[in-house]
């Protein structure tokens, strides 16, 4: 009964979405508000129905309804309660429902915010969003039905992928999907602008906050994914340049570029064509990302693929790209720049360079990801493109971007006079040089690490210079320090929100540099009572313990960690799930600001007499997560509504 209700809800939702898209487009084309209103109601109906689908699927999970194939594959009688909830979006069909639900949610908010404020664009925005939803509902009803039955219903299910039994499952997909689906909104506005011919600044101004929101959730999703990889996957790293990771990284890169280039269009009315192309590219990349994850075309640890769904996504991607880019070509003439520049040394140039580097990085990652496919198609050979490639080619690009992060916010628009350059950059450059000397004196010999740290100090100094100068100006008017700083942040929340986000990025850079340059590891087999030493830590193997959990069998090793004094006992484990062919490594770690001690259990003897353990001391990794928190604060600050009166 329940599954049939769910399937019916999806079909009705699809019909509503198709009707709504047609009605909104027709209403916009013929100027009849009644049709647009009907489309609004359809969107609301879609939201209610998709929520119902979601609820019914969750119910099937909680009630152990193994007659539903999706439930039988992703859960079993031993799956703990909370993982039966998060497991709903743990595999293909459920993840598409999550995606659709978030799209419907965004559509509702767009309706609430823009039905009055964006009269010309709004109906087309609605049409586009409903069309995208219609596609995903089509996938749900035809290609990946979540309520497909399994007859006869098995007595017990297979079980959730053990790697997904983690708090990361609650947050990572939701955050990432909020980012992916969020990009649909600026895209819809861009298409609306192209269709109506109103390709000026209106669509940019309306979508500014949407872009920040989508960009933020993409960043959050990526960072949580990194955290999840670090503490669950048992290899001690947070980023592997896996094709599906790349698939999320590429739209992030182009979204970052877009975030910056819209500022040029806002201030100087330039880059109109570029901005439209960029947002279309970003949306296309989000579709490409979901295509990669679901088609199995490129091998990946993430890929959860099935049947014809890849063809659906590729078809939709083709439709979107050809239509949107075709519209862009059609409106080409209206997209000339209206600004003028006096000097190449200016903020416009800095932003342009920022965009070049970000899009080049996105292209590099894209090319590297699809290259195995290209090599097979052209030469018939199998090649791998992995972390060593991506690390080597992207590092120079990111270093240049960090440098620009310091230059961009302070350099003047139109023309930066030598005076402007001196006032803004003298101290930061001096600070950078001093920092370089300092690190060299400290014994840091990796040129890359010194360079990265120097640039980080430089950028931090530019932020400090700007903020202190502005604060001092306020202090001169008689304001006290804290209100001055607070008022500054609030009055110019866009600017300082951006600065805080940049600071967050600097902290992430610090964490990445530290962990890449100075982490050490070793792998050794220890007898009971024996110890291994690394970087001042002594790790002693105390023995194994076995336990029967609700859905797996766990063997944990007890390792006492000390560095002069005993720090604690770490228990990395190996978990044996009946449905998995090899055991899942469970790591244990001790986090710190300066370094993490990280243990992975390898082979062990049945009698507990000896065990192989991989011991890592990872440096500065925690700063990546701290940077994520700072990034959140910055994004929050940037989205605040603007104060009209001076504070």
């Amino acid at each position, binding site marked *: 009964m329940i599954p049939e209700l769910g399937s019916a809800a999806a079909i009705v939702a699809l019909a509503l979405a198709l009707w709504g898209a047609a009605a909104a487009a027709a209403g916009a084309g013929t100027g009849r508000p009644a049709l647009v209103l009907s489309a609004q109601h359809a969107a609301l109906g879609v939201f209610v129905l998709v929520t119902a689908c979601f609820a019914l699927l969750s119910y099937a999970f909680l009630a152990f309804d193994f007659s539903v194939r999706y439930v039988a594959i992703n859960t079993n009688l031993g799956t703990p309660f909370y993982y039966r909830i998060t497991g709903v979006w743990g595999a293909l069909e459920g993840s598409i429902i999550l995606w659709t639900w978030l799209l419907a949610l965004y559509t509702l908010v767009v309706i609430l915010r823009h039905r009055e404020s964006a009269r010309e664009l709004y109906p087309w925005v609605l049409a586009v969003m409903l069309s995208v939803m219609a596609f995903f509902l089509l996938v749900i009803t035809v290609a990946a039905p979540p309520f497909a039955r399994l007859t006869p219903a098995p007595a017990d299910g297979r079980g959730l992928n053990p790697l997904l039994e983690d708090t990361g499952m609650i947050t990572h997909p939701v955050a990432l999907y909020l980012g992916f689906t969020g990009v649909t909104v600026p895209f819809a506005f861009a298409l609306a602008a192209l269709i109506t011919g109103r390709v000026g600044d209106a669509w940019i101004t309306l979508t500014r906050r949407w872009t920040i929101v989508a960009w933020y959730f993409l960043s959050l999703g990526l960072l949580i994914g990194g955290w999840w990889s670090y503490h669950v996957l048992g290899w001690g790293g947070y980023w592997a340049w896996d094709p599906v990771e790349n698939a999320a990284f590429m739209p992030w890169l182009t979204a970052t570029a877009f975030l910056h280039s819209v500022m040029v269009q806002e201030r100087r009315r330039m880059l109109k064509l570029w901005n439209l192309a960029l947002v279309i590219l970003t949306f296309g990349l989000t579709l490409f990302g979901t295509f990669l994850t679901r088609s199995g075309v490129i*091998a990946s640890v993430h890929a959860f693929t099935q049947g014809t769904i890849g063809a659906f996504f590729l078809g939709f991607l083709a439709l979107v790209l050809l239509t949107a880019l075709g519209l*862009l*070509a059609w409106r080409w003439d209206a997209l000339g720049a209206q600004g003028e520049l006096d000097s190449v040394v200016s903020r416009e140039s800095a932003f342009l360079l920022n965009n070049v580097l970000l899009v080049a990085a996105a292209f590099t990652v894209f090319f590297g990801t*699809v290259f195995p*496919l290209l090599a097979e*198609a052209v030469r018939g050979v199998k090649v791998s493109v992995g972390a060593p490639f991506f690390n080597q080619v992207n590092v120079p690009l990111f270093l240049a971007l960090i440098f620009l992060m310091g230059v961009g916010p302070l350099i003047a628009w139109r023309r930066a006079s030598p005076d402007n350059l001196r006032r803004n950059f003298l101290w930061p450059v001096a600070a950078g040089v001093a920092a370089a000397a300092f690190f060299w004196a400290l014994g840091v010999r990796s040129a890359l690490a010194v360079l990265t740290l120097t640039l980080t100090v430089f950028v931090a100094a530019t932020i400090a210079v700007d903020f202190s100068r502005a604060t001092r100006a306020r202090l001169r008017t008689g304001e006290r320090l804290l209100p001055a700083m607070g008022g500054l942040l609030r009055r110019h929340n866009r600017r300082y929100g951006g600065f805080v986000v940049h600071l967050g990025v600097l902290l992430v850079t610090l964490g990445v540099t530290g962990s890449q340059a100075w982490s050490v590891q070793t792998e050794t087999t220890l007898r009971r009572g024996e110890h291994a030493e690394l970087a001042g830590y002594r790790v002693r193997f105390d023995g194994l313990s076995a336990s029967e959990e609700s859905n797996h069998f766990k063997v944990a090793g007890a390792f006492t960690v000390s560095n002069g004094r005993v720090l604690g006992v770490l228990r990395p484990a190996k978990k044996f799930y009946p449905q998995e*062919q090899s055991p899942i490594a469970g790591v244990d770690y001790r986090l710190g600001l300066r370094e993490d001690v990280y243990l992975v259990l390898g082979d062990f003897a049945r009698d507990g007499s000896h065990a192989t353990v991989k011991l890592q001391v990872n440096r500065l990794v925690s700063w990546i997560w701290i940077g994520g928190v700072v990034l959140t604060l910055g994004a929050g600050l940037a989205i605040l509504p603007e104060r009209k009166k001076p504070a």
Partner: protein
Amino acid sequence: MTPRLLRWLIPLSAVPVLALLAYGFRVNPREAPSPLVGRPAAVFALQTFEGAPLALEAQRGKVVVLNFWASWCYPACYEEAPVLERNWRAYRDRGVVVIGVDIQDTPEAARKFVRDFSLSFPNARDTTGRVSVDYGVYGVPETFFIDRRGRIRAKHVGGVTDETFRTNVETLLAEPTG
């Protein structure tokens, strides 16, 4: 090309990318051609589950079907085990030997597998993984067809069928022994 038409390059540029992705449906990213075909098969010296020595060199002069399997490899290994056993019994008197190498497995599960399928051809565990590396094994099951002079002539990834077995073995049997 006039500037007017140049603008249509933008949407057209998406086409080769889409075509490449569509091509991706035709390939299996997990299959890779083996560089070992045509080269001498790496020698190994293992011990069967019964404790008897099992060395490749001892099989010189016979056609060898070398199969890599694991007890957790479901369903492919479970489907091909009876095929291998059946064909082993059919061909053993014609100078063909089937050897099974169990990789990434536990002794108990492996023995159970051998028992369950009543495998009578020699099976050994590759405890150190060296044999699987020597043969470039990246998944199970994989089967190598080695001729009488000890050269790998074919590699089959995935479960072996009667057809595959017979075709390869008959080809190698038809070759002169000299």
